[in-house]
């Protein structure tokens, strides 16, 4: 079993979920720090605050399922099993990166863990997930597709066409909207008629509901119910996950546009805090064990970051490989 699949399996355990959320948080922080230092060009979109969503999606899917996600995809990739070295490596454009450094922060990929190349175009992954579910089913599996996307993406045509198509074709795909209340610098109320986006599912007669995205325990349960329903009935589901990004939209954004007090309210619902506290309260983890876990993860990410910094940059051949079958220089 590959290290990625082992990492995926580790999410069966609640402590494993806490550890993964910590790993995502530290990885994103490390990436942001490198951008701040000017070590990386371009842009990056991190997901601090939304870690529980990524972990719950990975925990509630099986290996055969296919997930599409966006430029804000580091958390999903790590949750599905991609290693921090692979994620950070891609962000820094190194050969150890997910696709060898030719993609950058917005382009991670590993179909062996069910992750299609992540999407830099808003909404583009939504119809693709519909097709991926069809493709997987055609090979005799009972797999489902999971399209993850943001609140802002519900205003783009591809969202509408994909949900309608999935319904009329009875495709086992779950449309999972991470409603973090902002699309780039615009709050949802300025771009969308209402905040409860699950209501949009009715336009396609797709069973739809909203769930809390900060408590990974309940989220895994709720998503499992929806995923298994889609799987069993071979029909689509729409799930709106209420969450929030604790950071700006992308590298340089300080998020001056937030409603005052909003960030603090959500910081009180930090998914890592919530699960950590509960595991300690339940006696599953001791305070010491929790602290040790946090420092272990921090160390591991620091090491991965250093490894990546020391790693090789791709050579000219990487630019001409995989353009089409057999292309090379």
């Amino acid at each position: 079993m590959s290290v990625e699949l082992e990492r995926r399996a580790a999410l069966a355990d609640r402590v494993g979920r806490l550890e993964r959320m910590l790993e995502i948080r530290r990885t994103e922080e490390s990436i942001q720090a490198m951008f701040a230092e000017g070590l990386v060009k371009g842009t990056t979109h991190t997901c601090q605050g939304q870690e529980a969503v990524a972990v719950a999606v990975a925990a509630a899917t099986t290996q055969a399922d296919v997930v599409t996600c966006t430029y804000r995809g580091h958390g999903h990739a790590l949750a599905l099993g991609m290693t921090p070295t692979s994620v950070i490596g891609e962000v820094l454009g190194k050969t150890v990166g997910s696709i060898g450094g030719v993609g950058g922060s917005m382009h991670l990929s590993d179909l062996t863990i069910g992750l299609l190349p992540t999407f830099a175009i808003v909404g583009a992954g939504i119809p693709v997930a519909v097709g991926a579910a069809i493709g997987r089913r055609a090979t005799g599996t009972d797999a489902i597709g999971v399209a993850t996307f943001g609140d802002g993406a519900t205003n783009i045509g591809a969202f509408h066409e994909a949900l309608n198509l999935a319904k009329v074709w009875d495709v086992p795909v779950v449309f999972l909207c991470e409603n973090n209340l902002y699309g780039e610098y615009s709050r949802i109320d300025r771009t969308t008629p209402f905040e409860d986006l699950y209501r949009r599912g009715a336009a396609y007669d797709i069973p739809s509901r909203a769930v809390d995205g900060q408590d990974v325990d309940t989220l895994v349960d709720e998503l499992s119910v929806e995923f298994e329903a889609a799987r069993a009935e071979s029909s689509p589901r729409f799930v709106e996950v209420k969450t929030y990004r604790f950071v700006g939209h992308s590298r340089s954004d300080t998020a001056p546009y937030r409603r005052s007090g909003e960030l603090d309210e959500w910081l009180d619902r930090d998914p890592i805090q919530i699960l950590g506290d509960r595991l300690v309260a339940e006696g599953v983890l001791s305070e010491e064990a929790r602290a040790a876990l946090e420092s272990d993860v921090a160390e591991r990410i620091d090491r991965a970051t250093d490894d990546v910094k020391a790693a090789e940059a791709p050579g000219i051949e990487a630019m001409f490989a995989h353009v089409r079958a057999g292309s090379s220089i």
Partner: protein
Amino acid sequence: MLMRMNQAIAAGLRDEMRADPSVVVWGEDVAEAEGVFKATVGLHEEFGDRVRDTPISEMGFLGAAVGAAATGLRPVVEIMFIEFLGVALDQLVTEAAFYRYLSGGEVSVPLVVRGSVGGGLGFGAQHSQTLERWLIGSPGITVAMPSGARTAYGLIRAATRDDDPVVVLEPRALYAEREDFDPSDDHIIPLGTGELVQHGDDVTLVAMGNTVSVAKHAAREAAWTADVIDLLTIQPWDRNLVFESVARTGRLVVVEESPWSGGWGTDIVSAVAGELLDELRAPVVRVTTPDVPVPFAPDLEARYLPTSDEVVAQVDALLASGRSIGPWWTREGATR
């Protein structure tokens, strides 16, 4: 056997679907109605659910085809009129075209997009263009265009077997044209290879789709003789075939059903001007459509499209004076 081009396409799809269960056909009214242009006749009956009608959602079903192709199917998607790609282009050139690259070679997208193209049937400005220029320059995408039933059959089969996205642009005016051939594996046409369909010495006429018959007709009528090349694939195009011929004839006239600006011939003319200059005995000429929307009025549409008379006039001038006379509309005083 005598076949119409739309029948040949259906036959090509049928043969590929029989050979490979992963081939599926999706599009608007391609299943029960067997296609607006009857290019999918018999498929739904023989293959059932593998042939599906879609809602009017080009972005949706093209995107779904990309996802299905990435996970093991070989979808053949019909875009009824190529202009409709304007509501879904992202999925083809920004997603499908980049997947192999953006997956480090892990994910391939064996997707075929069939789109009807071109003028001559009175469909008007928004249903008569060829638009290959939306695709040329998108790395990873192959773009082919048949010139009749046989080549349509051969290209459709090759496209379906290819492991990267292939767009087959089908000249609408040829769907009803008959050609005599026996559909079989022998007729599969390797993508990227053109055909020398007529031999001559004075000039090389490079044509594609609807203009192949225009070029052949011109070469038959004229006082001079020409190599007539049916390009068949415009990306990647058959350099060796074109260069070998032009090196021999020393003259190149590209006959394009595409606009003067950005037409597909500009790639060929540029390559020749860059690498065969010394072999050229005359300026390179392009016979194209003018830079105007495709007009509906029958006389105007006929005038808009490249004609064999114009090809003859251009080559006559090259041979007589060694100079190009410029496109007909500038001769008649068109302003931009």
